[in-house]
């Protein structure tokens, strides 16, 4: 089962499976980007949309009523990579360099956005999300939540708050920016394919990757994890925890001041 989107494309109505929709969106976005300096860009994009719609129409029949990822990637392959649309005149050489430079710059930054990772979760994917953001092993983050949860009890409320606050990585573009990968047609295609593979595995073997099994695996790995990596990551996470606990401390000081000011009976430290 795959979710679909209804789109009006090239003047026709299509049911497009979600991964296919993402691929198509990325393709058109990159095409528009490539054609930004070309005259008549809108017209070219419109013509390409018509042609893609025609190819989709040919791929559909009585049995296959929804446009699949294969349909989209076949059609896009036939039309060619967006870079093939690049100016057909002398400005071409200059255009190539700037685009490559842009790409390099984008990779140099490698900014990672904070999302909950639904593909590598024990509960809400909070720990995996934080691990992606800091570029460390999720096991380290889980260890800290686990230790804090068992010995002080702060791990659980902090986890729940983060679960509520952090957005879940829903689309392929979310997943890429979570890991700091550039969002391009190719990267979206491979992410979408990876997701499909995972979904298929889950369907065939539903118990292998359940949250509880992951939890058990995590406990086992906790004791086999090699120490240097753990310590390196711990430093990073401790810094974050310090920031968080400083915030919590500030909040509770505020609460104390308020309760003193208003002479209330409630005192968080009693």
């Amino acid at each position: 089962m795959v979710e679909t989107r209804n789109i009006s494309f090239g003047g026709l109505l299509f049911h497009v499976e979600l991964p296919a929709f993402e691929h198509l969106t990325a393709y058109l976005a990159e095409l528009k980007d490539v054609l930004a300096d070309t005259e008549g860009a809108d017209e070219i994009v419109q013509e390409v949309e018509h042609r893609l719609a025609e190819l989709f129409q040919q791929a559909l029949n009585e049995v296959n009523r929804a446009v699949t990822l294969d349909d989209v990637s076949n059609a896009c392959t036939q039309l060619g990579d967006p870079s093939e649309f690049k100016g057909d005149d002398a400005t071409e050489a200059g255009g190539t360099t700037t685009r490559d430079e842009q790409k390099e710059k984008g990779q140099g930054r490698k900014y990672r956005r904070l999302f909950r990772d639904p593909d590598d979760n024990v509960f809400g994917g909070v720990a995996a999300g934080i691990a992606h953001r800091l570029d460390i092993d999720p096991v380290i983050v889980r260890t800290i939540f686990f230790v804090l949860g068992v010995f002080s009890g702060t791990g659980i409320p902090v986890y729940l708050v983060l679960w509520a606050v952090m957005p879940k990585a829903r689309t392929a573009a979310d997943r890429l920016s979570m890991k700091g990968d550039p969002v391009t047609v190719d990267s979206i295609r491979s992410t979408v394919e990876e997701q499909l593979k995972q979904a298929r595995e889950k369907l065939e073997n539903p118990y292998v990757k359940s949250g509880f099994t992951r939890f058990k695996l995590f406990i086992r790995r906790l004791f086999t994890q090699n120490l240097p990596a753990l310590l390196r990551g711990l430093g990073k996470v401790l810094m974050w925890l310090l920031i968080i606990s400083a915030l919590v401390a500030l909040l509770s000081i505020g609460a104390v001041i308020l309760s003193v000011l208003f002479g209330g009976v409630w005192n968080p430290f009693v």
Partner: protein
Amino acid sequence: MTKATQASTAQMRKGVLELCILRILRNGEAYTSDMAAALQAVDLLVVEGTLYPLLTRMKNAGTLSYRWAESASGPPRKYYSMTREGENILDEMESAWTQFVESVNSLDASAQSQKKKN
């Protein structure tokens, strides 16, 4: 084919693409993907996408015109044809092409005749 040869061949293809399109359109109007198929069949084009910006530019320059035609298998198709101006341009390009080929071949011929002398 080495990488350098490939790049050079790609440039050559790009250079004659406009002439090739006009030659195809001399036989009457054509749909973009039909032109692409014709060019791909003789290895003059890699992907369809390259044609779209070129055709739009030629249309805006007044070399080509187009009409919308209903299609049984999807959205309406844009059929391109040559304008009167396009015919003049084709004539010019044909003579330029002939001269180009002759020039390039003459280098080979003169090189061979020099070899014979030596």
